[in-house]
């Protein structure tokens, strides 16, 4: 399958202090790398999941693709067109093809706009003359909402309804790609399923490709074809979703999967897989950046950073000693050999 969207070595940096202040305080490099040289491709009709904890850079990567954060290095291409370095006005055209669903369904809608105006706004921004009332009704029907919601304001909507409005808004300009940032966060489980089923139906009917940004592992297992697990702005593991869930190659992936409690009192955990917390981006650990929390870390991990290398067909991991097989989830390091 051809890759619709391709990211190559994308790096997003944010300045942490002013240059004068940095000079006075002797900070050599007053930047943090929110996204640190990541590469992936999104295929036509595919769902790709970006998974990570707070501060892992998953949202920043999504925002860089749609031009809301500036990529300082690397390339982001949509159907061969380079997006890095485009001016804001030029990006407008890109956003007809790539739409974004923002995190909080209610807060991402203007409280002063009715549902009708919120859905019609993309047409106005892009100067598309259409019967906006008719378009708004069509989009509402598409996402399974009654016409009666047209005059409603965001505060009158439930979380699930607001999320549907967010979907309708993203669909307005008939994009090819939708970046969905935490599409189910804050929704009850029964409503969560409704939204995911809706997104799935629309994907089939409209041939959409999704980039789903989430920390919800049980959800991403059901909805994504491939995954990237992010830690401190880097991809630590990428591959097909079912393979990663069946056989995590990176110790962080293993720890993340083990941290999700199983809804079965017979499967209680006694052991804690991951201790400690995510280090600060201002102070990245030396060597492998995960070594401070890795239960399998060896001397080499403290010294040299691993590359994101191929560990099996369609699988990449940033680890010196990836797990060869979950059946014997032990590192193949010097100690094990």
């Amino acid at each position, binding site marked *: 399958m051809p890759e619709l969207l391709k990211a190559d070595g994308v790096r997003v940096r944010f300045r942490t202090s002013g240059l004068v202040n940095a000079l006075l305080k002797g900070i050599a490099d007053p930047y943090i790398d929110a996204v640190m040289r990541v590469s992936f491709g999104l295929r036509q009709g595919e769902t790709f999941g970006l998974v990570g904890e707070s501060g892992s850079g998953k949202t920043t990567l999504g925002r860089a693709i749609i031009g809301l954060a500036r990529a300082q290095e690397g390339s982001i291409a949509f159907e061969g067109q380079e997006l890095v370095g485009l001016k804001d006005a030029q990006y407008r055209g890109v956003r007809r093809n790539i739409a974004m669903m923002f995190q909080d369904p209610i807060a991402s809608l203007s409280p002063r706009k009715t549902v009708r105006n919120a859905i019609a706004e993309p047409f106005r921004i892009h100067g598309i003359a259409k019967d906006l009332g008719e378009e708004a009704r069509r989009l509402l029907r598409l996402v399974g909402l009654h016409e009666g919601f047209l005059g409603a304001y965001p505060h009158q909507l439930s979380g699930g309804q607001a999320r549907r409005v967010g979907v309708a808004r993203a669909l307005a300009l008939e994009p090819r790609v939708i970046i969905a940032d935490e599409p189910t966060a804050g929704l009850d*489980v029964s409503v969560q*399923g409704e939204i995911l089923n809706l997104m799935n139906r629309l994907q089939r009917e409209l041939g959409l490709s999704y980039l789903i940004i989430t920390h919800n592992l049980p959800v991403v297992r059901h909805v994504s074809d491939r995954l990237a697990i992010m830690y401190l702005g880097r991809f630590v593991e990428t591959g097909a979703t079912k393979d990663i869930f069946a056989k995590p190659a990176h110790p962080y992936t293993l720890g993340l999967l083990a*941290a999700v409690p*199983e*809804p079965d*009192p017979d499967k209680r955990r006694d052991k804690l897989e991951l201790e400690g917390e*995510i280090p600060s981006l201002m102070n990245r650990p030396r060597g492998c950046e995960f070594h401070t929390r890795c239960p399998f870390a060896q001397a080499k991990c403290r010294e040299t950073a691993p590359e994101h290398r191929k560990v099996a067909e369609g699988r990449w991991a940033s680890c010196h000693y990836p797990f060869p097989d979950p059946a014997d989830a032990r590192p193949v390091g010097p100690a094990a050999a």
Partner: protein
Amino acid sequence: MNANGGDRVLEVRDLSVSFRTGRGVVRALRHVDMAVPRNKIVGIVGESGCGKSTLINSVLRLLAANAVVGDSSTVLFRGDDVLRMNDRQLRAMRGQKISMVFQDPMTALNPVISIGTQMADILYRLDMTAAGKRERAADMLAQVGIPDPMRRLDDYPHQFSGGMRQRICIAMALMMNPALLIADEPTTALDVTLEAQIIHLMKDLRARFECSMLFVSHNLGLIAELCDEVVVMYAGEVVEQGEVHDLFHRAKHPYTQMLLECDPARIEKASRALPTIQGSVPDLIDLPRGCIFGPRCPKRYEPCDASPPGTYGVNAIHSARCFQVRDA
């Protein structure tokens, strides 16, 4: 004061709470019966608007001014009715005998007071020196896994990470060695690896402090992981309660069954088509005549529409508010 109250630290009987609003009377809780046995962790699970927060607020009597509590309702904490306590008795209870861990550790702590001072303040009733209180605070911080506690007492909340702040909130809740700890979605604001750490900590503390706990969550995984008994709430009623294994493996109420089915973590095989519960939660101002879950229930039959079901026992502690259980 009656000091014991038997084996139950908390016993809620026939609790009904309504709120008077401009739109009408919202019947937020109706005839809730539940209990927390000594040294047990009882989980309350339910979706938004099911009445979890109103129940907790009733136990602490923190209800809003427009709340009306039913005449026959009682909330017995170690044998004393919280609903009939005077202000002095309430002050002696809140934060001392019943303490609470809130959802968001970022906003639960005062940002302009060092955590050592905030912790020592909890001990204001005790006849201890300031140094003694600080030592006790540092000791509690060590218990919840904060490294270098004596030095960190002078730090402010913003100097701690989210996970550490929630550990501090737990330490504060345990300062007075309460008889009942209420945890309201204590890990919702945390990442999954930190959530696992906090749950691990709570299990560990429970073994050391012998504290009874009311654990509120919408996360079935956490309920299964931590709780001994589970109370399932829907639209202001307890629809089912029982021992945790019974609830997860032998659920009787259709709502509980569907809630379990909907959880993507319980669906073995990866699937794009996820189960949902059709319809939406009823308006609590204008309740249906029959069973509260009736309009959404796939197993509905004649008796369900005529009158609301009572609570029918499955075993000594397992019961469900469903005619199918009565007729089984």
